[in-house]
């Protein structure tokens, strides 16, 4: 879909057993792939941080973030279009891989 982009979702949460699967379930139910997932202690004492990268459109990313915030143990959740810089990096890598694949075909 043309309106699909990579979005980075950030959530600040309590450190609770089972929260990862609760968060993952929000994506599964909407057939969204998680492209990247990081979970680590935030700089706020006792608060954990999720970083999730997913490809979708703005309406759905808003719904996902709202559903995340609805979880009792999620403090706050945010979304943004994945940064231009990392996007460009990614495209550069994709171009590079495509280029290498073409090279391997000509080598054969």
């Amino acid at each position: 879909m043309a309106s699909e982009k990579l979005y980075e979702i950030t959530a600040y949460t309590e450190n609770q057993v089972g929260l990862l699967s609760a968060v993952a379930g929000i994506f599964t139910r909407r057939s969204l792939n998680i492209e990247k997932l990081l979970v680590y202690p935030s700089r706020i004492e006792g608060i954990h941080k999720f970083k999730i990268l997913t490809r979708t459109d703005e309406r759905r990313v808003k719904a996902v973030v709202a559903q995340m915030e609805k979880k009792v143990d999620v403090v706050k959740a945010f979304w943004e279009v994945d940064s231009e810089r990392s996007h460009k990096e990614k495209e550069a890598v994709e171009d590079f891989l495509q280029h290498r694949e073409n090279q391997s075909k000509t080598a054969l």
Partner: protein
Amino acid sequence: MKDKIGKKLSGAEILLEQLLVQGVDTVFGYPGGAIMPVYDKLYGYLDRLHHVLVRHEQGAIHAAQGYARIKGEPGFVMVTSGPGATNVITGVADAMIDSTPVVVVAGQVTTGLLGTDAFQETDLIGMTTPITKWSYQIRRAEDVAWAVSRAFYIAASGRPGPVVLDFTKDAQTGLAEFQPCHCDFIRSYVPVPEVPQTAIEQAAAMINAAERPFVVYGQGILLSGAEKELGDFLDKGDIPAGSTLLGLSALPSDNPHLKGMLGMHGSIASNIMTCECDLLLAVGMRFDDRVTGKLEKYARQAKIIHIDIDASEIGKNIPVDLGIVGDAKQVLARLTPLIEKRRRSAWEHRNEECDAVERERVCLPEIAPADGPVNPGEVIAAVAKATRGNAVIVTDVGQNQMLAARYSRFSQSRSFLSSGGLGTMGFGLPAAIGAKIAAPGRPVCLFVGDGGIQMTVQELGTIMQEKTGVKIVLLNNNWLGNVRMWQELFFGERYSCTRLLNPDFKMLAAAYGIRCENVESREELAPAIERMLADDAPCILNVHVREESLVFPMIPPGKELDQIMLNTQDWYSYGK
């Protein structure tokens, strides 16, 4: 209770003490291996905790839902691990989608056996996480009071919903010092968001600028106790309104602003007015597809304001011009002083033309036919007349539900109980048991089909044992009526697997010691209803109704709200 504070108690006893702290007086449950330490302690608490022994755990949760919805307090369920726990899952999902506060405590195997596929072990937390507000495994006696207190707070606050506590057996038997807990704050959870005054002012300005405002309200009115605030708001602005299925009884049926139920089988007027309003004000509802019809065409001519306590509902299905995340009662109370007192007479009477068509073409043929078999709607209208709108009306799911919603009358709030979002057949009978226990002084009438009653028919045993005075009106047509209707209308009259061969319900009732009358004809109906309502004993009225009945008006699935079928041939068109 007081003499236990500070004492070393088992986790099982702490659970029971904390239940008393929460004000619980009724337990819907079923014992089994992994919850036996709690049931053992319960033996000493039966004078304070009334245990309703159901016949299947699904019955326990639906009864607790019925209790919660009629009483306005969380229902409590206690079951064992494994199959006991999985049997409540349908009800947990039902409570989630219908915003019903219930707390389920399920036994679980000893912590040392977790993950070993031990006898009756199942991953209840994993299974219920997507369908609960909160689910938590209690592994230590020290955590019991805290977890129970938190569970009740979460279940009942904000947008209510189900909470599951998975209670390991060693946490039940382990000892801890009992200190009562009173949870009323969780830092990551904001149940009632604050509404800025600017949003209230903006909403008021939009309402004051509107010539044809229309309010669509849902169960949020009942859940926040905003019945009076809604009535005052509609009175001051002279604004018409339509109710969702679960919003029914929030306003009395004779409120002049109320134009009927919204959606697929709702009133013609409420759906047409949704299509003609210039401002749609949605309060405590979630734009279910049964209400909106084709989403892209829903109220597209109108500005839309959506008031809901759940932020994730704003803009979920319908893009809105103004979203207000807050408690319906508080928001309406702040909004009413800011709206202009106006008369909108022409718009308020817009329904009359629709109502005349509906009455002549749909209602009278259903509830007052000249001859032929008894219609299901006729039975419901007769019960409404006999109870003068004072009964708690419980439904199962299907044609009985839609007709009960259409033809029942309500004079007070919290009088309608039905599985809306999940549409759980088999909900009705156990929910009616819970409703009667919650409101023992009121008549509780269940409308149920011959299909739905057989999904949870074992709960007749609970009625027998508890002597619960539920009045069961069985609309018996020997079909799965709603599916049969769709097969007739949309699947080329191919009646695949919808014909039912039924038991003799009178004999079945007799086996449970429950009085049952068969009603075969129109003449027998009113006297039988009168006899049914004459006392407070359980009773079944087995009414043989028209076999091929259809429910109209109907907006077929995926159609727009002004595409309304009046019968199999005719569609509503203005004034006809």
